[in-house]
């Protein structure tokens, strides 16, 4: 492998790793803010216990989200310096804005939230978690706007003197139609993840608690479980809708990505939607469509069932060679095809949990069925996998481009990944690939164990009652409400 392949693997591994923890943070922060709000409004201490319980899990997760995010900020310069030179004028702006607007907000107010129990007035303390929730979602917006420029560059011109892309309109960049579709899709995915996590944990605890406790521990989880199941339903619907909007944009703006997602090799009018396709050599010659549904693909692409012309991979390849010179412009058909399908089908895990959960908790019931306890646990990983699959599809679907040409934009603003990579010897990049992978794998194991242990431990004794507000400003020894 050369430095290009290793750099691609490294970026893929570190990004996918980062995005295991990020959606849980993005979705869980608002959910915890809601739990705390209910406690503050109703004064019901059960919601305080829930806030503390899920708050602990949130913090264990947040640490790793932050740690893995630091690397991303510098990896562009380290491994993709030529890309950074080419688009820095445009791409750097949302990144810097993300730091200024979002990172500062979330990190500062999270510190206030963690250490502010009993120190800040109740309402001020509640405001801190809401600001964290706003911060994490705002950061998602900026980084997705940056990514969307790579998928569909807008708001920039090509400067032939410097040979690079230059920003012409920050407004166009931040309202890129790709970003406006991708952001709600990613956030809905994050809410689905957090909803499934909360519903799964609460569901498992309802079943378990009835067996081991007096039932109080179980009953406490019922309202939060139903809240989370509602979140799953709403975010699931939002995912379908935003996914459809995104798909239509992709058919228009990145036809190669969608053609390979569908293993659509040859251009056709109203091609059938592929449900199952096998191919042996990751190329169009060996593709065999086993199950197909008519009409669906046309609807996905244009919103109508007939009369839609779609271009196939083989024809697009020819077209691109003519337009951009010789080269292979096809993404990995196998990965894009299956990642697309994984993303969609895995969402069924969350849906199943929500529907079954709403049924078994109907009319004030607290579930005791063992199968529901198992379903609750089994559903938790599915949205994480679906998120990863979705990003793998989005990112690997734009190969070989790192900045995909915009068919209605400036033609010179395009860059292949091989033009964007830094000029390092392979050995240098291997070192960082191995180091990051090992450190990350180790930390992921610890993360999983901590989450598992804190879920199993359940709400803790010392979090039963809230701390009284302390406005004593003297130095007199009084124990902190929280200390690392």
């Amino acid at each position, binding site marked *: 492998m050369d430095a290009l392949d290793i750099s691609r693997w490294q970026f893929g591994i570190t990004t996918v790793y980062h995005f295991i923890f990020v959606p849980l943070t993005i979705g869980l922060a608002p959910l915890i803010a809601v739990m705390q709000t209910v406690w503050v409004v109703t004064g019901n201490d059960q919601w305080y216990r829930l806030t503390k319980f899920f708050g602990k899990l949130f*913090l*264990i997760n947040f*640490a790793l989200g*932050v*740690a893995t*995010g*630091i*690397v991303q*900020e*510098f990896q*562009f*310069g*380290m*491994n993709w*310096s030529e890309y*950074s*030179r080419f688009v*820095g*004028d*445009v791409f*750097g*702006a949302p*990144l*810097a804005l993300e*730091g*200024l*607007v979002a*990172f*500062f*907000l979330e*990190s*500062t*107010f999270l*510190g206030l939230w963690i250490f502010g129990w009993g*120190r800040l007035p109740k309402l001020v303390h509640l405001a801190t978690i809401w600001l964290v929730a706003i911060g994490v979602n705002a950061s998602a917006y900026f980084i997705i706007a940056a990514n969307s420029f790579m998928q569909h560059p807008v708001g920039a011109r090509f*400067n032939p003197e410097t040979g690079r892309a*230059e*920003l*012409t309109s920050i407004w166009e960049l931040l309202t890129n139609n790709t970003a406006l579709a991708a952001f709600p899709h990613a956030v809905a995915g994050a809410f689905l993840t957090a909803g499934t996590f909360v519903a799964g944990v609460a569901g498992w605890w309802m079943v378990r608690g009835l067996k081991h406790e007096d039932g109080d521990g179980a009953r406490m989880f019922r309202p939060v479980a139903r809240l989370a199941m509602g979140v799953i339903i709403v975010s699931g619907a939002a995912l379908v809708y935003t996914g459809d909007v995104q798909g239509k944009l992709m058919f228009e703006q990145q036809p190669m990505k969608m053609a390979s997602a569908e293993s659509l090799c040859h251009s056709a009018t109203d091609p059938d939607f592929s449900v199952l396709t096998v191919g042996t050599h990751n190329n169009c010659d060996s593709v065999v469509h086993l199950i197909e549904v008519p009409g669906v693909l046309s609807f996905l692409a244009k919103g109508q069932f007939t009369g839609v012309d779609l271009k196939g991979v083989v024809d697009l390849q020819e077209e691109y060679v003519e337009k951009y010179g010789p080269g292979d412009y096809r993404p990995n058909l196998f990965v894009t095809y299956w990642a697309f399908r994984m993303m969609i089908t895995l969402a069924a895990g969350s849906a199943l949990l929500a529907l079954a959960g709403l049924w078994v908790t109907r009319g004030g019931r607290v579930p005791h069925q063992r199968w529901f306890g198992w379903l609750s646990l089994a559903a938790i990983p599915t949205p994480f996998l679906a998120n990863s699959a979705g990003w793998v599809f989005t990112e690997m679907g734009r190969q070989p481009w790192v900045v995909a040409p915009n068919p209605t934009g400036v033609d010179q603003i395009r860059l292949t990944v091989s033009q964007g990579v830094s*000029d*390092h010897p392979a050995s*240098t990049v291997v*070192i*960082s690939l191995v180091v*990051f992978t090992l*450190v990350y794998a180790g*930390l992921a194991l*610890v993360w999983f164990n*901590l989450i598992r*242990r*804190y879920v199993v431990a359940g709400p803790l004794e*010392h979090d039963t009652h809230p701390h009284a507000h302390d406005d004593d*400003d003297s*130095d007199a*020894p009084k*124990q*902190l409400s*929280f*200390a*690392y």
Partner: protein
Amino acid sequence: MELAQVWFVLVGVLFTGYFVLEGFDFGVGMLFPVLGRTDKRRRVLLNTIGPVWDGNEVWLLTAGGALFAAFPDWYATMFSGFYLPLLLVLIALIVRVVAIEWRGKIDDARWRSRCDAAIMVGSWVPAVLWGVAFANLVRGVAINGDRQVTSNLFDMLNPYALVGGVTTALVFALHGAVFIALKTSGEVRDDAVLLAQRLALPAVGIAGAFVVWTQFEYGKAWTWLAVAAAAGALIGVATLTRAGREGWAFVLTTVAVISTVVLLFGSLYPNLMPSTTDAAYNLTIQNSSSSDYTLKVMTWAAAFMTPVVVMYQAWTYWVFRKRISTDHIPPSIGLAPERTQ
């Protein structure tokens, strides 16, 4: 003043904010073995920075983002050129973040000592390497016509850069000791005061040598002011800690950090990365900045957001202004260790 110059200053401001704020965070972690002889004392140390260290670290991320936005070539050349040192810094920062957050999660001596080791290493490594990196930045590295750094790691371990690394480590340790003295009471405070006094002298010597070296080799006439401020501040720290004036001592270590960064950026100007191969290959403010429009947008954003950020971060420091001691530390509430044997 041109916008590119404004952004050179702003990048300097962001790095200054980072070094001032993370400087004492690193110092606290570096001094774990000296000042944290018992678990309770280590918890006192850690909780002096507890609510703020994460926000402090964001100064680095924003400085990185600002570099990328305002000087893409600087970002690309520096971070691909300083590859291995940056990799080490990143790994150090990763393990430090998780060790701080996860330390109290399991109530087990072995778990905690591993986290303590990670916090210590995660503080020492960047404290030394940032000095090495910035010294090399000022000194210049071999850059070719394609704006690629061709120096290897051993070229970067030159005497000047090594003195730079020792300087930042010492100054951050001193900054941390004074910060601890300011934020604690009882025995931890007494020990921190004593340690600050002991660290002050070598800090004056080595940091003094580094700033004077920098000034003679790379400085400008006006940067003598920064040299004087840095040296004066460090000498002042020694006397003030002796007199038990931690507040003023902390102001002075802050001045020392600021004036050192000012000296380094002042020496660099108008270059961003001087090339030792050929002055024609220097990355300068003029030939490496973003377009005027990007700089204008970023200037508006910085002008609005920076004061807001400074305000709410200052408020955080105000909220948690109380001194803490071992008496304030609650019993550990981590889960019991899970024994498999």
